């Protein structure tokens, strides 16, 4: 039920005094309430749940997280390689 889907804000307008917008979900467009994301601008991504934008999707954080995933394990591989390379030396702490 708490499913939230990222969509891109195409247009922002007012309806009955409420901040609304047209949001694109890979080709499907819907009218979405933007009252809770006053900082969101046209072109931003937002996470939408039951017709409401609940948060701005921080694209910078998204890219950082993906970059972190790319590195996961690589550091360890290098450390292990070092350990194996240095036969006879004291084990590395940690």
């Amino acid at each position, binding site marked *: *039920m*708490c*499913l*939230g*889907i*990222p969509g*891109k804000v195409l247009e922002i307008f007012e309806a*009955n*005094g*409420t901040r609304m917008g047209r949001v694109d*979900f*890979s080709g499907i467009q*819907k009218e979405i*309430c933007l*009252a*809770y*994301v*006053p900082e969101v601008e046209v072109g931003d*991504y937002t*996470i939408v*749940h*039951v*017709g*409401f934008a*609940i*948060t701005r*999707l*921080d*694209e910078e*954080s*998204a890219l*950082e*997280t*993906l970059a972190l*995933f*790319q590195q*996961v*394990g690589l550091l*360890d591989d290098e450390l292990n390689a070092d350990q194996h390379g240095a036969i006879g030396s004291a084990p590395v702490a940690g």
Partner: protein
Amino acid sequence: MKYLDEFRDPELARRLLDEIARTVTRPWTLMEVCGGQTHSIIRNGIDQLLPEQIELIHGPGCPVCVTPLEMIDKALAIAAKPGVIFCSFGDMLRVPGSREDLFAVKSRGGDVRIVYSPLDAVKLARENPDRQVVFFGVGFETTAPANAMAVFQAKQLGLKNFSMLVSHVLVPPAITALLASPRNRVQGFLAAGHVCSVMGFWEYEPIVAEHKVPIVVTGFEPLDVLEGIRRAVAQLEAGRAEVENAYARAVQREGNKPAQKMVADVFETGDRLWRGIGLIPMSGWRLREAYRDYDAEHRFSVGDIHTEESPLCHSGEVLQGLLKPNQCPAFGKECTPQKPLGATMVSSEGACAAYYNYGRFITPDEISLPV
């Protein structure tokens, strides 16, 4: 879809799994709180790909599953009244009450409608001034701002024919109740990402301080879930217990302030019954006195309907992680998604339905090797 597909990359998933396998040295039991995460875990087979020391318990975070039976019976009673248009999210329609479900009321001619957003129900009320429009307002903190806005707008518009049957539940009191239970086995939590988008995660800091359990705010895509598990396991292995945010693209510590403000204006905290679990103190939201006119329980005087749960269904133990769905004697036999006995078999986010839909018929005992 952008910002979904990137978080489903099998190559990166493999890397996260390897890293988890490298980190783990002994058994740990984690609970994913949210039903959306349960669905993602079972669908992607994450529980089976993890090192066997890590056990995932599927938590109570499916609002459809925990909505109490008597609330369903109240919904059925209201939906059957002449002149009522009863609106709900689609997944509530097949939840069994004590005798039938909303679909049965609909097939007898009741005007039961599925809406995408609670604002659609407000719109229906404006378009049908001679009908009573009732919205079934269930959900966790994620859904509450939407439901609060619907009630707020109805009041602003002076609508006399709109009301809401409110059954809102809250995550932090449920986590606290689980931790306080003498039967608790959970050593770390994956907190529900979108609940935290709304509420932030500062509420978990005192829980972590008191109970010394890691709580990692976690998203829903396979990589998000793996990252949540990776961080929780890293904390446990290092003897740490902290609140960590593994879903930074959608969650900030303070949460969504405008949404919180609207919720606080419209709802107040109160005790709430959870289907299969029982009463958890101060674990739900109900309409404030100022919005009493919009309370469907009040308007249709169904406040005195009380119902008992079926003794056959073990969903309460499933929701608390004491039983895996396929360990329930009725699983896949008397109880299937076509003919559910309990709510955890109805919703695709319910643990029983997730196990059924992805073919998990074998219990852990049956696959364990003979000694």
